[in-house]
């Protein structure tokens, strides 16, 4: 009884210890930096697996605080992993660089079990900083993107309030949310998250591929919008600032706005159609849509327009696939039941046969042993 108590006590202590280890499986470290900058300085960002957030302030300083988290089931490995994760940062002239990196690539090969790591980088910067940013596997939230900035986000979303003139934004496999943007060049490809460009103005070049997106076009003075294999809402809440010329090739155009457009067929088959809105301006928004659905509307689409893009469709497609392969039918069919019956009978027969054979061997061996006289 006493032994049993000791055993359970030991068991409890072990469980508690394991729990403690599990709690200590996650380790963190913090890296900070601060650089004095002038107005119009550059910030070069190159991050992977980092959530990057910028907050603007009135100081002429760029400061950052990066919290790095590493987690695995092996505490020693977690320590190694955490030690290998770095944030390299420096200043050269007007450019401050912040870069996430592995310190020792040799350690990568010793990955055991479930592991994960991530950065949370908070940057404090003055307004007017020119970004040259590449953010992968993480979101980038920044209040203002200054003129001539270049921002590239992959596998994450770019969320910004105000993008100044001539900035170039590229987003792939993520989302893009902009409240105001002037004279932009935007490439949006394979968007998997909400993508809205509000209050686009000036001379704009917007390329959208394989994405669902909404673009407010009222204040575009001159622009090229290229849409490929996408669903796009062109939103206008008032009269356009320029003419609109939309050519839809192998696609659908739906106008629910207050604007009256003229329609003309460009080819004989009616596969390419041109829609025009003329308001007497010399400039125009030239929109080329191929294999796409374009909505001209006074309102932004519902949230479901962005979220339901792939998932529902793919679920349906998967069902289609299953139906086409007719797995369910086959499993329910008599031939499948017969096959299973045969397999079952063969297995039982084989087992019986082997059991009988083994019995015979056993009897014979027993008899032999009885007959045998040992010296």
């Amino acid at each position, binding site marked *: 009884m006493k032994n049993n108590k000791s055993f359970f006590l030991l068991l409890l202590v072990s469980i508690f210890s394991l729990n403690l280890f599990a709690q200590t499986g996650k380790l963190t470290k913090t890296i900070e930096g601060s650089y004095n900058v002038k107005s119009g300085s550059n910030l070069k960002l190159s991050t992977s697996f980092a959530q990057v957030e910028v907050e603007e302030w009135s100081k002429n300083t760029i400061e950052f605080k990066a919290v790095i988290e590493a987690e695995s089931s092996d505490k020693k490995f977690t320590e190694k992993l955490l030690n290998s994760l770095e944030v390299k940062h420096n200043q050269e002239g007007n450019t401050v660089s912040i870069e996430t990196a592995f310190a020792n690539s040799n350690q990568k090969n010793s*990955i055991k079990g479930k*592991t*994960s790591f991530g950065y949370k980088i908070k940057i404090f910067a003055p307004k007017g900083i020119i970004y040259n940013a590449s953010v992968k596997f993480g979101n980038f939230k920044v209040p203002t993107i200054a003129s001539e900035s270049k921002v590239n986000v992959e596998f994450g979303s770019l969320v910004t309030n105000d993008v100044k003139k001539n900035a170039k934004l590229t987003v792939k496999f993520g989302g893009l949310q902009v409240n105001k943007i002037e004279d932009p060049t935007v490439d949006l490809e394979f968007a998997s998250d909400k993508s809205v460009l509000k209050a686009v103005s000036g001379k704009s070049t917007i390329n959208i591929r394989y994405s669902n997106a909404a673009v407010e076009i009222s204040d575009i003075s001159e622009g090229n919008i290229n849409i490929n294999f996408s669903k796009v809402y062109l939103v206008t809440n008032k009269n356009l600032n320029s003419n609109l010329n939309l050519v839809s090739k192998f696609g659908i155009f739906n106008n629910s706005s207050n604007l009256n457009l003229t329609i003309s067929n460009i080819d004989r*088959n009616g596969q390419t159609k041109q829609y025009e809105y003329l308001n007497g301006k010399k400039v125009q928004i030239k929109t080329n849509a191929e294999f796409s659905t374009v909505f001209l509307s006074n309102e932004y689409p519902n949230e479901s327009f962005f979220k339901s893009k792939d998932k529902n469709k793919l679920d349906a*497609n998967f069902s289609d696939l299953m139906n086409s392969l007719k797995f369910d039918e086959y499993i329910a069919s008599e031939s499948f039941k017969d096959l299973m019956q045969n397999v079952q009978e063969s*297995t039982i027969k084989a087992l019986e*046969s082997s059991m009988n054979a083994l019995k015979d061997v056993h009897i*014979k061996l027993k008899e032999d042993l009885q007959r045998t006289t040992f010296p």
Partner: protein
Amino acid sequence: MHNDPKEKNDRLIQFIDQHQDSFEEDFSSDKVWNKIEATISTPHKSFKQRYLPILTKVAAAIILMIAGAGIWGLINSKSQVTDIELKVANQYNPEYADQIIKFTGLVEQRQEELKKISYSAPNFYQNFSKDLDELENVYTNLKSNLYNNPNREDLLIALIENLEMQADVLNQQLAVIKNLKQRSHEKQ
């Protein structure tokens, strides 16, 4: 008087009748055969001769069982876990592996469909292939990172999303080509 044969015969019958019990006792079939058997030198059977037929049966039964199990395994494992992404996916969450298998199957099926009808719009097919190649290159790149990068779950999710996109892209391309094909038929 002793030479009379009839008399002799009668006496013999009388003798047999009187000693019938002892005869049966001395010459019972069991005893006789036991004695005969003892005199016959039985040939010595080797282990092989003795057990070979039985062992053959056992071996046949085992082979049959293994073959049955193999067939059963083949029926049940539509997709064997051989790729790195599936191994890692199973390590993290079997649902990830299921999704990879599902979407890979879907992509392969759609690619086959697209190939079959590509003759009706070869130029389109060529252009469409470039888009798909782009996604496939991203997939390959993600996959190559999966082995060395400790942040495997994020990469797995990106891989699954990529496959979903490939499937979606193929669906759209298929729809376009089917539409073109239908229109050309209508024209004819």
